[in-house]
């Protein structure tokens, strides 16, 4: 069995997409990890839909003495106050999202279609809730999906058509998985990078829609 990237490495790759001055919203789970890997030479402002902009790094369970009961991010981690931070109400927080004031939204994914449809909030037969995912996905911000390329039993997650309920149609810009980096383009899914040791053909075999292999195809660089 060839090795796939772990979650931390996917998060590292996602963080490479952030530019100096970007306002970035990180979804629950894997996306939150991307916040740990901001290059030292750029400044990124984290936006959280519960009403905070520009908060500091999350605190661990060992830092319980520093926990502020009124300061968590959308992944329910306690975060820190840093200079320049602001708080606001959630109507405004989502106005920022829908209004296009957030540059990048990083979300988890269950399925992504070749048209960039996203399904990430519920599996059939489960109770759940979409939280802020639909607002973020439909916002028109650059939407980056961090997810595993295949299900635990080897099934496809990147599909011609999603069969789980959609979060938003035609919203995904970039998919970063444990095997590949794929851009959603008008022509179709563009395979830009593959995990070390993997070929484009091997990634294709684990992806339902036909991939366009980039002329500049390369190994994922961190």
């Amino acid at each position, binding site marked *: 069995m060839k090795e796939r990237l772990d979650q931390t490495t996917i998060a590292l790759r996602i963080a490479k997409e952030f530019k100096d001055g970007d306002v970035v919203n990180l979804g629950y789970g894997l996306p939150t990890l991307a916040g740990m890997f901001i290059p030292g030479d750029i400044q990124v402002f984290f936006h959280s*839909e*519960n*009403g*905070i902009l520009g908060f500091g790094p999350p605190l661990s*369970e060992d830092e*319980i003495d520093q*926990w*502020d*009961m*009124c*300061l*968590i991010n959308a992944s*329910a981690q306690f975060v820190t106050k840093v200079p320049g931070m602001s*708080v*606001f*109400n*959630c*109507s405004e*927080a*989502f*106005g920022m*999202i*829908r209004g296009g004031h957030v540059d990048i939204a990083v979300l988890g994914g269950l399925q992504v279609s070749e048209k960039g449809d996203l399904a990430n909030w519920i599996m059939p037969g*489960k*109770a*759940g*809730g*979409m*939280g*802020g*995912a*639909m*607002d973020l996905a*439909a*916002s*028109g911000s650059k939407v980056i999906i961090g997810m595993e390329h295949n299900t635990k039993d080897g099934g496809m997650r990147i599909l011609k058509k999603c069969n789980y*309920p*959609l*979060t*938003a*149609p*035609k919203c995904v810009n970039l998919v970063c998985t444990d095997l590949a980096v794929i851009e959603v383009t008008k022509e179709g899914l563009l395979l830009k990078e593959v995990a070390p040791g993997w070929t484009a053909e091997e990634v294709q075999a684990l992806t339902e829609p036909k991939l366009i292999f980039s002329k500049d195809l390369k190994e994922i660089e961190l």
Partner: protein
Amino acid sequence: MAGDKVYPSFKEAVADIPDGATVIMGGWGAPGDLPDNLTVALRDHGAKDLTIICVTSGTPQRMADAWGKKTEHITPSILAANKQVKKFILSISFPTTVFEKAMLAGEIEVEWSPQGTLAERIRAGGAGIGGFYTRTGAGTIVAEGKEKKIIDGKEYILELALKADYALIRAYKADKLGNLIYQGMQRGFNSVEAPAARVTIAEVDDIVEVGELSPEIVVTPHLYINRIVKIPKEGA
């Protein structure tokens, strides 16, 4: 006279909530932004067949356990566990909560609302707006049965305002008129929810004299607030 908004107990503050009422349970879901004491009082009061509007019904056990090291975490799920809830209008639930089990068993009716749409529906309710068109949810199951409209070439769906009979919210400080200020993200949903109910009840850490809160820092002006209750200090 104006200013008789201070209630001596949580129990008295919720005593007139009738069976069948629509109640906003305030806050987003941080351990410090939910109206814990009013939630417990409503459970003990026992009103039934409630329609509850809230962001999240409960907290995953893992988080409740971690937070429990520092504070007891009380969520609307205690009302579900006490069989007081007919319907939830909400955005998030977690597996393993009482609510999810009851929902899957068909015992509780549920209306899912995307979180930003939920915030705006509540804001609209408090601001006298009947509804609004949003892109959020277009092309998904959330759009089912809703009016669609193409604006600038994009599909929007009509979402209707939400109003409640009561709102139970959490703030940091109130003055005796009911002007409120918040800590951290307490303002997130609580300040949006305050205007959306006929009777809004706030629990606060402190109640100060009128004039002690500078007008520039008041987030929720007093006209939205009907009742305030001070949270007893621990050990007091």
